[in-house]
């Protein structure tokens, strides 16, 4: 099975040392680095104040 060959590799960009607040929305994208290695990339979007919501689910 294709997925048996997958090794997941996680790293995150942008967020380091930034922390979280109610003004930030985080999305995570999967990037393929090689056949067996994937990288998770996070993207932080600053939301306008009235629409701010918690990142914590």
């Amino acid at each position, binding site marked *: 099975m294709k997925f048996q060959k997958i*090794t997941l*590799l*996680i790293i995150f960009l942008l967020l380091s040392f930034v922390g979280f607040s109610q003004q930030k929305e985080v999305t995570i994208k999967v990037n393929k680095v090689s056949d067996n290695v994937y990288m998770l990339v996070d993207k932080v979007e600053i939301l306008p104040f009235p629409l701010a919501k918690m990142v914590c689910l």
Partner: protein
Amino acid sequence: MIDDQFAPLTPKILAAIKTVTEKPIKFLINTHWHGDHTGGNENMQKEGAVIVAHENVRKRMSVAQFNKERNRTTPASPKEALPVITFSKDVSFHFNDEDIFIFHVHEAHTDGDAMVYFTKSNVLHMGDTYFQGKYPYIDLNSGGSTQGYIAAIKKALLLINDDTKIIPGHRNVSDKAALETYVKMLEEIEANVIAEINAGKSEKEVTENTSLTKKYDDLNFGDWFISGKVLRKTFYRSLQKGK
């Protein structure tokens, strides 16, 4: 899985992983103890992952850590968040037709750094011993040193080749040529600071001397939380400590 970000992101991380596999996470490797690399440990352990790290990661996570420069205390992690398998020098994993070599580099970003090399895929994850395109954060409070940081990169360079894909702890995928340029930059700055120290300059004088990092400041390496000023101070303190 390598590193797991802050705890609130765990559900999104798991959802992202499910887009490539339904299989559970068997092993989680922490490249060092900082919260943006270990914050999801407790959640991942509950998901069934076995956490692996250098022995100093477990030691530091077991007790509160005070960062003098940032005047910030990180509380001890709960037992469920601690690595359950630790190593002192290196450890290897063998699965998915891949040999994965995990090795410790001494007193670099912290005193518990590990790099992870996927030998078949020819991919090296360097954790925070490489900040692609930006000056490095070297945590002197956690046993890191500028000398060890440079040595760690040189060790990585011995292992890789021109085709290796390098994943830094932050920012973009990189390669050997870029890493060589990066370590050259650090060695140049180190030499500049050493010359100042040998000339009897104080920490304040070195920290304020913009010429020591100007070449790379102009290339925007200091355009984030580690500015040229912060880096000059870090080099000064680390080199003085090492005397």
